[in-house]
């Protein structure tokens, strides 16, 4: 909770500190009109009062009206955008998790082979290329070159329309998870208890399944928290590039339009989401690691 409060205040002041306001147009408004507008949105109050009112409204679940989308509240905008983003994010996380751990494990089991080096090389590339570079490249290759997939648009969440956004969002995370899995598994494989299992004559398969898997994925599970945060940040960019009507897109447009309440709303919403997800990850971790389970 305190984390969230700090987040709200910080975002609030940062938004205010940015030059310009929601009603700065090329043609300036008549003074009395602007004053009326400011009054309507409580912008004529002192800043601390604005913050207090905002937090008060938040507690009642009211994110306030949007400054730009007339007749819409921020709550309404978030509830239309979130399903799209959720779909994108969940698909990306699952994809990254599945292929990341698979690739990482294969590399670890073939440690120092050509396969290993190859996988890790592409992994490094995956981590270093940001998705705003990766996404256009994918579009160039698959949509424009091969004409196999649509270059953008949501189309009601059509499967083919989602492939490229999900892949470009998932790639860096996949690469990171692959490296994480590889490192962790190599460490577990060289541990003394694996040696014990070998000395007991267990087959490689049994050793992997019953001794190696669980400790290997502990670091991956704890990475899921930061991974969601990274996916959320990534989705802001990817939604913009592929023209998906998700939260991230509202966020960017809100920022460009000085739509204070919308930007704040999305920040607070994402903040909550990340906090909740970290909690989930911690709980999950406790289930896997018996040492933590015991200490509760």
């Amino acid at each position, binding site marked *: 909770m305190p984390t969230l409060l700090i987040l709200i205040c910080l975002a609030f002041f940062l938004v205010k500190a940015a030059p310009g306001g929601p009603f700065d147009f090329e043609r300036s408004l008549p003074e009395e009109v602007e004053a009326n507008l400011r009054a309507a949105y409580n912008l004529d109050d002192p800043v601390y009062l604005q913050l207090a009112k905002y937090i008060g409204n938040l507690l009642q679940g009211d994110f306030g009206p949007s400054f730009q989308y007339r007749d819409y509240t921020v709550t309404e905008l978030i509830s239309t955008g979130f399903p799209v983003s959720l779909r994108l994010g969940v698909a990306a996380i699952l994809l990254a998790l599945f292929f990341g751990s698979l690739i990482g494990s294969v590399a670890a089991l073939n440690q120092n082979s050509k396969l290993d080096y190859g996988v890790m090389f592409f992994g490094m590339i995956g981590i270093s290329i940001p998705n705003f570079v990766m996404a256009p490249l994918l579009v160039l290759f698959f949509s424009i070159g091969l004409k196999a997939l649509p270059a953008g648009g949501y189309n009601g969440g059509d499967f083919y329309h989602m492939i490229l956004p999900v892949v470009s969002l998932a790639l860096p995370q996949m690469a990171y998870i692959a490296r994480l899995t590889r490192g962790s598994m190599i460490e577990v494989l060289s541990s003394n208890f694996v040696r014990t299992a070998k*000395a007991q004559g*267990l087959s490689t398969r049994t050793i992997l399944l019953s001794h190696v898997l669980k400790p290997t994925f502990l670091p991956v599970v704890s990475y899921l928290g930061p991974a969601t945060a990274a996916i959320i940040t990534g989705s802001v960019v990817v939604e913009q590039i592929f023209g998906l009507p998700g939260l991230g897109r509202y966020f960017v447009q809100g920022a460009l339009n000085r739509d204070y309440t919308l930007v704040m709303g999305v920040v607070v919403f994402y903040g909550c989401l990340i906090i909740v997800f970290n909690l989930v990850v911690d709980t999950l971790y406790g289930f896997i690691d018996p040492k933590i389970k015991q200490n509760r």
Partner: protein
Amino acid sequence: MTDLLATKKLNVKFRSRGEIIHAVKDLSFKLSDDEVLGIVGESGSGKSQTVLSIMGLLETNGSATGSCLFADKELIGLPSGELNNVRGNEIAMIFQDPMSSLNPYITIGKQMSGVLKRHTRMGNKEIKERCIEMLDSVGIGKPQERFDGYSFELSGGMRQRVMIASALLTNPKLLIADEPTTALDVTVQEKILDLILAVKERFKMSVIMITHDLGVVARTCDQVLVMKNGELQESGNTEAIFYSPKADYTKELLKKSKEINLKEQQKYTETQDPSIKNSLVKSTNAKVNFVLPKKALFSAENILTAVNEISMETHEGEVLGIVGESGSGKSTLAKTILGLQKLSSGQVEVFGERLSEINKKELKEIRKKMQVVFQDPFSSLNPRMTVFEILKEPLDSFFPSMTKESAQKDIEDGLMEVGLTPEYLGRYPHELSGGQCQRVAIARALMPKPQLLICDEAVSALDASIRGEIIDLLLRIKAEKKLTMIFIAHDLAVVRKICDRVIVMQSGKIVEQGPTEKVFFEPEKEYTANLLSAVPVPDPKMEREKYIKRVQAK
């Protein structure tokens, strides 16, 4: 007698960064049914690699050639599928570090069941019964509960018992024990060694016992192989090796081992004149409590009293030994003296100052006069600092006004003093051996020219021969610099060799204290006497008598 295991010209080689390391050279030996074979040597002698190669457990850069027949089956070069039918089934192995050798993420029961599932056709219920029966027979209390528990809930000795229980599940013909008691306290070691001998009789097995401790060999083995640098130095039955050794290396090992173990050794330090009794450290009713994590939300606080009402003194110029098993509170006591651990009640006075009543600056002045050497030299030296930087750090913090030149000179002198040349200054700790690391740690402790040196298990992690060197070094420095030393150890032989006075601790309390000779020869308390007799001495006849006595006592 038939040969259960026979190796012929066994060679183990490792490829490492283009170099080939020949770890085991042309080793041939035989092991009969129902026999305990000891393999002794220092670390790097190839004793562990020998058995690992037999078990097919060499690291991936290692390879074994030659022959090793087990019950007329060639093990070297056997495909892993067939090897897996032998290991864990006919040959079982237990390792040095039972903590890391058991999987902390799955239950003990699951780990043990895995062995039976692999090698037998028992049903789940039968498997569970067998596992619990085995846990029970190695002396684990509440085996039902332990079966569903995890290894980290157990003490070191109990973990080793679990290892032994899982090794015995399939009634193997051969048990290989690789330094099974090295990480354990003497009293626990005694119980584990007795257990190994007992199960060997009961299950009619042969045992290969790998150890660096000749006392352990004298206690347990029928036949002995002595190895050095991968080569066999001498082999024969235990009595022959101990009473009429032929190889020079064996004689040397025996001499070193007897030097610190047997009674007829001379004392190294002169006894102090009792009239000088200026005490540097004095504790009165010192008590340290730790609050353990709660088991449930509303349960009462669990308090562990690590140091319980301890009153002791350290006199100027003496070497005070503090001995006790792990968990006896000896290290916590040292921490309170160093001001690293707050007291719950009582007082500790160091150099006449009450630690609880002085501020940080005064504490720093006292720390200058009081330095410490820790157990594990590798982890107590910063791996990212060179030897020079490590030695310079105490000078920077205690003598900030020192000039560069005089610091350089001090550092070089300090290094020479511990027997290292200035060429080591540029090296990092990982480029040094364990003994060299500990020398650097000692040099670092001596940099501020302290009056009191606290050695917390300073030689426990070292090999026997290096241990001897470091002890000699400490004694020399102590005499030259007129240091007062507090020497904390669980190794009684070491304490006996260097301490003037001893404090024996058990569960946070002082059991007995007095001059070393008196405590060692006429212990007043039964606990001390048990602790002393638990130390294995390199004399097979004496050990046999002790063993028979222990068996009869049961």
